[in-house]
């Protein structure tokens, strides 16, 4: 099942022109980068939610846990806690991580679990045929809101900054090399890494033109400056038509969640002895 080019034989069923293809190859290439630095391929685990994005589990020939809608992050946290040697990556959708399972995203950042979360933020529910999500613009006419979405979007970057994320970046499926680079950095960052990928949904929300027109790559920005990161993140509110920065907004080294659990040396003591000792005290 582990394929040399990391792509399985599963038939790919994304729509033509879908931004997921770019993310797939960027992620694949970033993983190859890790492997070339000596990370054993079998130490890499992918966790996906449910949605178009999640098909990544079928397409990449690596360990994967194809989870349920909205629940990538707790699964990834469990895997990392079980074995901190593993490199754990979440591919989550915006419906997935920003609606159904938003709480887990915030707790992932708060705990600083050393996992990388890639959000395929196409700003729409793709697989359920086009409803508004928490990052769809106000008034979005999706199938559940034919008269226009009644809510403004939130800004996932500012939310992540407020939640304590130590690596906050944004890229887009319109810029494969940039995306590959950012995912590579995210994978190497020790701690919770968050990458919001503005992904094109060819079928339900194709705003390529917007991202091409307004997008620009961050430069001269100091990712260690929290306040600057907040101001930069606020530049575009996922709603109106302002410049959209791509790059690393914020990075900070902090202790990771899994390091805070004491690792017991593998013991040869059969639990029965310890149980007996416990019972002795209860007598």
């Amino acid at each position: 099942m582990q394929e040399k080019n990391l792509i399985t034989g599963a038939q790919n069923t994304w729509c033509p022109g879908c931004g997921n293809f770019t993310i797939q190859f960027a992620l694949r290439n970033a993983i190859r980068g890790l492997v070339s630095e000596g990370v054993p391929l079998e130490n890499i685990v992918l966790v996906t939610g449910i949605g178009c994005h999640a098909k990544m589990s079928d397409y990449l020939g690596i360990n994967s846990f194809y989870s349920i809608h909205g629940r990538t992050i707790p699964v990834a946290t469990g895997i990392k806690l079980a074995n901190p040697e593993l490199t754990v990556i979440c591919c989550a959708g915006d419906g997935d991580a920003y609606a159904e399972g938003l709480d887990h995203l915030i707790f992932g950042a708060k705990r600083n679990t050393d996992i990388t979360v890639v959000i395929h933020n196409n700003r729409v529910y793709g697989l359920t045929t086009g409803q508004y999500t928490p990052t769809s613009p106000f008034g979005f006419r999706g199938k559940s809101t034919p008269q226009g979405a009644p809510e403004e979007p939130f800004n996932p970057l500012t939310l992540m900054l407020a939640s304590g994320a130590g690596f906050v970046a944004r890229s887009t499926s319109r810029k494969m090399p940039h995306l590959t680079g950012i995912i590579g950095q995210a994978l190497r960052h020790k701690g919770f890494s968050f990458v919001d990928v503005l992904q094109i949904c060819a079928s339900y929300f194709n705003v390529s033109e917007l991202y091409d027109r307004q997008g620009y790559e961050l430069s001269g920005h100091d990712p260690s400056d929290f306040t600057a990161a907040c101001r930069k993140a606020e530049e575009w509110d996922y709603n109106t038509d302002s410049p959209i920065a791509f790059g690393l907004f914020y990075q900070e080294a902090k202790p990771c969640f899994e390091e805070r659990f004491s690792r017991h040396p593998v013991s040869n003591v059969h639990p029965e002895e310890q149980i007996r000792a416990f019972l002795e005290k209860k007598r």
Partner: protein
Amino acid sequence: MYDISVLTGGRAGDGINSAGLLIAHLFNQMGYQTYLYFDYPSLIKGGHNFTITRAAEQKIGAHRDQCDYLLALSQDSVDLHRHLLSDNAVILFDSGRVHGQGQGIPVEAILKAEQAPTVMGNSCIIGAFAKASGIPFDVVETVIRRQIPKVPEKNLAIARKGYEAVLEERVIPRVGTTCCPLVNGNEAIGLGLLHGGLDAYVAYPMTPTSNLLHFLAGAARDFPLTVVHPENEIAVMLMALGLSYAGKKTAVGTSGGGFCLMTEGFSLAGGAEVPIVVVMGQRTGPSTGLPTYTGQTDLRFVLHAGQGEFPRIVVAPGSSEQAYVWSSIALSLAWKCQVPAVILADKTLCEGTYSLDEKAMIVPGTGDPAKPGSSRSYRRYEMTENGISPLQFPPLRDAAIKVNSYAHDEDGITTEKADIVRLMTEKRKRKAQALKGEIDLLECVKTYGMGGARTALLCWGSTLLVCTEVARRYGFGVIQPIVLSPFPEEQLKAAVAGVRILIAVEENADGQLTLLCRQHGIAVDIHVDKLDGRPFSVEELGARLKEVS
């Protein structure tokens, strides 16, 4: 035959549960079997709490309504429980707080004299109780040294003053020399899981299993165990499945409301064949209900929770020994068969304290899991004769281990093909068969006192011990299925063969086991229900049985 009940009452925050437990330890040292029932409302301080510590020469696991001793740390304790006192009841009370008949103990004055904090009041109380009941002070000393090892001298001094403050009233004799460990159901479940090889425990606090979380969080100091308390029960379940996928034997714990939130992950565990154990402590429902009271109303919920069909283990232990043994078995079998398992307990079992019979703690072996194949060709859902695929964990060289919530092929890749879906459904059915085979090797249905009994009580879970006790008096037999899924139909049919009148005793209104039995062709003649969240007392069950039989 001695059979003594001590009611200790006070306000929440007075340490009533500890007081009751210390008294149980006194009895334990005197060679008695003990049982401790703790009755408390859902609040932190004030209100009214009480424990009933019972001691007898035979194994017990239920409280009696008639109390022989009353230790009152609050006026309510005297006022509310008058009707429970036996005619010659010995009454001791904290004279600073309570007015009434009996002997007063100036607890506050004693603590003050010793410059001791309020929490040490319990030592004073048990000192007084020992004296009043003729228990030698060295027994008090043993108990305090063992159970309050932090500042034994001061506690002893206080106990001595309590001892001296009252007069002997009625002597409780020593009846034996063995003394058992006293553990509550949560501890027994936790130890059983540890026996089964538990690597990780994940839970969000919820009565009545919060104390299992607390217990295991403490045990993580001594055992190679990871304990996590995440943001909510959804995270609990999914984090646990992540741990399981990566090779850790993992359990979670909750009660009904939290279990609701776990059901989606439970179905994932079933469909993706990721093993997991859920400790599910029932309390009075529906909804928030009575958080600190009991019930047996969630059997059918756990039997059918989660969308789709998949095999699952449900065991309902009825005593601390069974809790230990079957928690270990549930964990082992869940991993062997790669299915979710539920340990179905309730508030009575979880928070009751029992004398543990160590001889009954023998866990039958469940054999080794399926052999892993070679890693190059590893397929997570390999088709096998018994439906169980070899279980491996990442990292596995040259392999990609893919688990999947979608319908999938042997490699774990999503499929929508009708024929593969059918094969995988059949694989799960074969696995259900294999699991049933495992269960059939075990003694899933226990019977008690069935020699020639024409009437038998049918019970499950924590009502076991009240049933056996009452049944003994009536000459009834008792039949207890411990495993409820896969349903041990043959063993249960064998057990009921020859019974003329089968009376189900369940702490619910619907008669959940009764209906389940009917579904398996086993007729229950009478259903004794319980509608108020309280566990049956010996007297109450006796009276109810008299009514119906």
